């Protein structure tokens, strides 16, 4: 449970930081998205409670996710500062978001069919599978957005960010095995591995991009000097 909180806190820091760069999001679209989320979460909780498998923890965590989405969405409506973005960055984010959504969607579909055709022998639980799909989607979005310089705050401190992501990713991979209770928990392992591999990949991409940017900047400088 504690690693879920850690993951959410870290992710929320970066998401909120990136959302603050944008202009105010359209109110209507945010409210419709939140309404859809609340409706489907309510159905899922209703099913679990009706079947007698629902617990207070599951309701609280689900409500927590909805509140988290609400904070991001409503925060985007009312607190966007509108600084430092242009049309190219907007398109880059849009492309990254669409492709990440496509990857996540196809992963979920694949996971569902693989599980369905394995006669109940699929080793990963629904929880672990969903975490893998979600983390892959998030990592895909961040990598694609950074490749196209969609966020200035990341671009300006790319090397430092790459070290942070790389280090955090490695820590998650290392701690994915056995926890403090010395018991292997497949759900925790799958979650931390998915998260760790994703973040390590992000760190690696940022490192490569920062090296490429430095090289391009020196070529550009030499070019401009020769023109002068």
């Amino acid at each position: 449970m504690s690693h879920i909180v850690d993951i959410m806190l870290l992710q929320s820091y970066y998401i909120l930081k990136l959302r603050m760069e944008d202009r105010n999001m359209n109110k209507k679209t945010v409210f419709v998205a939140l309404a859809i989320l609340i409706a489907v979460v309510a159905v899922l909780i209703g099913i679990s409670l009706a079947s007698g498998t629902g617990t207070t923890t599951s309701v609280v965590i689900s409500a927590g996710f909805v509140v988290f989405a609400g904070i991001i969405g409503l925060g985007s409506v009312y607190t966007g500062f509108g600084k430092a973005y242009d049309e190219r960055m907007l398109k880059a984010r849009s492309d990254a978001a669409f492709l990440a959504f496509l990857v996540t969607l196809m992963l979920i579909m694949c996971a569902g069919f693989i599980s369905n055709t394995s006669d109940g022998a699929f080793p990963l639980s629904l929880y672990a599978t969903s975490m893998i799909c979600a983390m892959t989607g998030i990592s895909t979005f961040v990598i694609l957005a950074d490749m196209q310089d969609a966020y200035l705050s990341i671009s300006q401190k790319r090397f430092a960010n790459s070290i942070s992501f790389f280090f955090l990713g490695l820590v998650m991979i290392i701690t994915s095995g056995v926890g403090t209770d010395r018991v292997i928990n497949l759900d925790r392992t799958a979650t931390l591995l998915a998260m760790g591999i994703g973040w390590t990949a992000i760190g690696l991409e940022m490192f490569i991009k920062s090296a490429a940017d430095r090289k391009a900047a020196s070529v550009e400088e030499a070019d401009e000097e020769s023109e002068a």
Partner: protein
Amino acid sequence: MKNLKLKSARAALDLSQQELADRVGVSRQTINAIEKGDYNPTIKLCLSICKVLGKTLDELFWEE
């Protein structure tokens, strides 16, 4: 396709990519992407760049 006309016009005014970007109101990466041919700017951005560089659309963005 690289936009060498834009690069030349910028160099003629002794502007760096960052300086041009600041005057136009976009990021340096956007100016770089336009010059390298990696991004097709909208007409609005094209006009902003033309105003700053004192050139017409044909002079900067017409493909020959």
